[in-house]
């Protein structure tokens, strides 16, 4: 074979949601970047559910956008239905979710990549990683070798192999050695990783069937509409530009008959028959799992979601399965509306190689391999949004390391991305990791509505947010602070007009004077409705920004900050506590064998995790509070 050599700055392996963000970040920061994919037609492919966002995942997309990522912009271009979830609940758990036109999504992202300066797309399987040994027992990545033998020399490699590594798909007894959607699997890289000393895991996930829309009787289902007013994902998208006609999704239910068929055929499920060795995710259980584990539930919800505008395929959400085809068909046909359904693509389970992400530090670089970064399902996560978020961080940090700058490390108190990465690199993951709002301890502060305020500055410092965007943020913050200060200092007396206003809004009348902010705190009153008695508002806005009302996004922040102030203050106090523990750094060269009285399990865990701080150490499973006390005492010496 020829010894053809190419020299670049960064190689990104894989062009899924993580790979796209990683490659774009590097190229946008001026680094010569190559992105490898086994098929150029599968760039930013959505092989499972046809949507972006959802609870907590919507937060990730918002944060990604605030830092300068692409996913938010791309879904804004290609969505066909949009919904803000949890609107009846508090602002912290409002979550945006959009149905995507899958083909459009892929095409638009490909367009962005193709037109990105410094970025080259290359269709090729990467077979080998190239490295050299360093004096300190660590290794350093020097390049990659593709299937043709061509060598790409580079300063950093970002692995975003998704579910392709030694992938195996199972549909009942039928087993194929392919990646998602029947695409070619990547079979060689695992050996190279093993040779590098990387510890591998094997996970599984699954996807439900796709059905022909013409075979479905929607009259037996409940129609699910999109929101009347569409909120964009990206801070760069003008809301007015995306108010468009939306398509519907449909809701139906399984029943006892469905469950009986599943129970009767469990022995033919590769999972229950023990053929699948990988660990599956609990949060998106197969219908077999739901029926077995929650046997008291009489029915399970099934959502039919369109895969795009130019296809008849419908995604059957809630019924992923790895049962054989004949059982699948019988099972699906028991569901109202699906009596005559025709399956275009069968449900299947997929197994793949991924890593134990504890080998990474919080910048997503391998602790022992300089220049090797990784992101996405390869790191043991699940979901498009989780992948994209890591891809962006890995891309940024590959660039930062090449530039010799400090890495971008987000912590748990400032972003869902920080929670995601901290969980991945410090905790023991036995299943694909999905983001959940319950994983974020400080979620009242980590809202989807304030991701720009939390993270834009960091994106600007990194170099992915323009000066103009940054200035716009500073202006927004100025308006928010000024208006909050005004509301707190503007008092209204208990006069006739005010009392009449309060009575008309079913709100208790005043005994003494109250500030405008105090009134906003009342559940039944809003910033908007108080306009009537807030005489100075218009003049103040005029003076502040030259308009009679403040921009909508400013008002949103003002209202939330004022209304939930008590809770927000409590949460900030918790963050202070947390930061104290995070700031107690553990020296990198600590020898845990010299720390007296650590329990054996804790000693082993600490040795292998090598936490950077006491805070991180305390989150490692198997390290008890007593061990932390011991460690604290030792460090104080």
């Amino acid at each position, binding site marked *: 074979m020829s010894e053809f050599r190419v020299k670049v700055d960064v190689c990104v392996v894989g062009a899924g949601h993580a790979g796209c963000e990683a490659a774009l970040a590097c190229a946008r920061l001026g680094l010569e970047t190559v992105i490898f994919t086994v098929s150029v037609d599968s760039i930013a492919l959505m092989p499972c*559910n046809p949507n972006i966002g959802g*609870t*907590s995942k919507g937060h990730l997309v918002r944060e990604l956008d605030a830092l300068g990522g692409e996913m938010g912009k791309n879904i804004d271009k290609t969505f066909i239905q949009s919904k803000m*979830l*949890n609107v*009846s*609940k*508090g602002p*912290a*758990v409002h979550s945006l979710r959009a149905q995507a036109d899958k083909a459009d999504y892929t095409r638009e992202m490909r367009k962005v990549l193709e037109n990105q300066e410094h970025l080259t797309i290359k269709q090729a399987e990467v077979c080998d990683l190239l490295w050299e040994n360093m004096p300190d027992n660590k290794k350093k990545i020097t390049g990659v070798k593709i299937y043709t033998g061509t060598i790409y020399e580079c300063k950093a490699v970002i692995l975003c192999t998704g579910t392709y590594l030694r992938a195996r798909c199972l549909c009942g007894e039928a087993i194929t050695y392919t990646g998602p959607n029947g695409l070619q699997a990547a079979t060689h890289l695992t050996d190279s990783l093993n040779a590098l000393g990387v510890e591998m895991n094997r996970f599984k996930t699954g996807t*439900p069937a796709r059905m022909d829309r013409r075979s479905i009787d929607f009259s037996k289902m409940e129609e699910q509409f999109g929101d009347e007013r569409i909120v964009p994902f990206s801070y760069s998208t003008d809301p007015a530009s995306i108010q468009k006609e939306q398509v519907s999704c449909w809701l139906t239910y399984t029943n006892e008959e469905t469950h009986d068929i599943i129970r009767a055929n469990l022995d033919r499920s590769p999972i229950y028959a023990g053929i699948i060795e990988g660990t599956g995710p*609990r*949060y*998106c*259980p197969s219908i077999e799992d*739901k029926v077995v*584990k*929650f046997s008291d*539930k009489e029915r*399970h*919800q099934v*959502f039919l979601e369109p895969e795009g505008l130019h296809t008849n395929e419908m995604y059957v*959400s*809630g019924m*992923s399965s790895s049962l054989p085809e004949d059982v699948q068909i019988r099972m699906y046909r028991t569901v109202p509306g699906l009596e005559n359904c025709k399956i275009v693509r069968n449900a299947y389970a997929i197994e793949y190689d991924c890593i134990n992400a504890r080998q990474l530090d919080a910048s997503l670089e391998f602790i022992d391999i300089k220049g090797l970064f990784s992101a996405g399902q390869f790191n043991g996560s699940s979901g498009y949004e989780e992948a994209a978020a890591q891809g962006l961080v890995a891309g940024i940090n590959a660039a930062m390391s090449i530039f010799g700058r400090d890495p971008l490390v987000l912590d748990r108190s400032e972003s869902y991305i920080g929670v995601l990465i901290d969980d991945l690199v410090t*905790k023991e993951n036995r299943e694909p990791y999905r983001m*959940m*709002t*319950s*994983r974020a*301890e400080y*979620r*009242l502060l980590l809202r989807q509505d304030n991701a720009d305020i939390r993270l834009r500055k960091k994106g600007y410092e990194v170099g992915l947010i323009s000066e103009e965007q940054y200035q716009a943020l500073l202006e927004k913050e100025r308006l928010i602070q000024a208006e909050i200060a005004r509301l707190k200092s503007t008092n209204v007396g208990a006069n006739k007009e005010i009392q009449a206003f309060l009575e008309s809004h079913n709100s208790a009348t005043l005994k003494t004077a109250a500030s405008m902010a105090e009134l906003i705190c009342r*559940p039944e009153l809003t910033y908007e409705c108080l306009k009537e008695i807030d005489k100075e508002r218009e003049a103040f806005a005029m003076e502040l920004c030259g308009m009679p009302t403040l921009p909508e996004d400013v008002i949103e922040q003002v209202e939330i900050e004022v209304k*939930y102030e008590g*809770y927000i203050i*409590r*949460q900030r106090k*918790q963050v202070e506590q947390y930061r104290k523990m995070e700031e107690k750094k553990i020296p990198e060269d600590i020898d845990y064998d010299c720390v*007296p*009285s650590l*329990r054996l399990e*804790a000693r082993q865990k600490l040795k292998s995790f090598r936490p950077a701080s006491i805070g991180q150490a*305390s*989150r490692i*499973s198997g390290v*008890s*509070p*007593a*061990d932390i*006390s*011991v460690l604290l*005492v*030792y460090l104080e010496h």
Partner: protein
Amino acid sequence: MFKKDTIAAIATGLTDSGIGIIRISGPEAVMVGDRLFRMSSGKKVLADMPSHLLQYGFVVDGEDDDSSWKEHILDEVMAVVMRAPKSFTGEDTVEIHCHGGLLVLQKVLECTIRNGARLAEPGEFTKRAFLNGKMDLAKAEAVIDLIHSQNEFAHKSAVNQLKGLLSDQVKLLRSEILYELAFIEAALDDPEHISLEGYSEKLTKKVEEIIYRLQKLIDSADNGKLMKEGISTVIVGKPNAGKSSLLNALLGVDRAIVTDIAGTTRDVLEETIRLKGISLNIIDTAGIRNTEDVVEKIGVEKAKKFAGDADLIVYVVDASVHLDESDREIIPLIKDKKAIVLLNKTDLVQKVKEEELEALLQEQGCVETKVIRTSITEHIGLEELEETIKDMFFRGQININHEVVITNLRHKEALMEALESMKMVKRSAEDEMPEDFYSIDLMSAYAALGHIIGEEVDDDLVQEIFSKFCMGK
């Protein structure tokens, strides 16, 4: 401060008893023990002895002189080596079982210190056990309480905490809070599958119940403290009824001045005594009568005040003097209180009949007050008094076998914190806040309770969500 040195102390109580134990713990424990222990043959064997085997021998204080060691024998003992981690502290430990006697114990202890051990600080063995992961925080603190407990009651409470009664209750509360949290979180994460409709009312009920239970535990903390410090007992009665004699009899010393002249005790005297395993803080008061003497008057006022604050009142009635106005003044003090009436001086000519006294008590509303006939100077009836006090506190008012009593300040504070958080949850629900706001304070309560048993939040919530609720697409 955690130090990796070897410590020693007398592990048993500091009283003369049959057997006393010296415990040596730390990396050099075996070496220290070996220096001072010899078998009857004179051989030094401790260093090579198997773990957990009791060995007969002698503690010898002196040089390594093999010929004259017998002249330096301090005590005839049994010794045991417990090698790490299988010991109370998790470290190498040597225990020497001596033949009691404080003096001998102290000499043996001094000997260990001369041979390389350091005198342990109070609770240091337990601290090491905790740091070595041998016990959780609640257990460790219960052990320390055990060491410091002054009486059998506190002892039993400490033992209960140790056995995990408190841990059990706290664990139960935590698991109930966790369930609610998981339900809310599951619904927030998967709003299309799990609905929170009508949940707020259900939660409010649950929260109220938890608040009640927390409050009960906290209240017990005050009781627990009381028991540890002793039950505040006030002796009242007319001048010269025998109050000071009672105090002296219980104390066994002439602490209060006892004369036949009424009004000798002009102020109040306070003593702590142990009675059937209960600590009593006994306050002897000035006799209550109408008096013109200014100093005595102050004493009388004080007596009334102490009686008001007392946990137990012992009312001493002089049987040799007729009941009068002063008695009518005293009886209201014991109404609604735990009280015992002593009909004293029954050895003298009785002017007060028991029936008469009981009738007066009935008339004044003291229905269940027990009357005991005594002659304090003759030591008659004192046994019955002690039994009665014991019964009142062990059987009647506080049933220590079924109730968890908090005796540790840190536990109380954590419970208070949890209580405050649960009250916040209740308020959020009353204010009709969105459900996700409940979880902030539910989580705080969960974490606060975790501090009692030394458990962190960790992944509990996510585990609970997945195990209890059907999630996802």
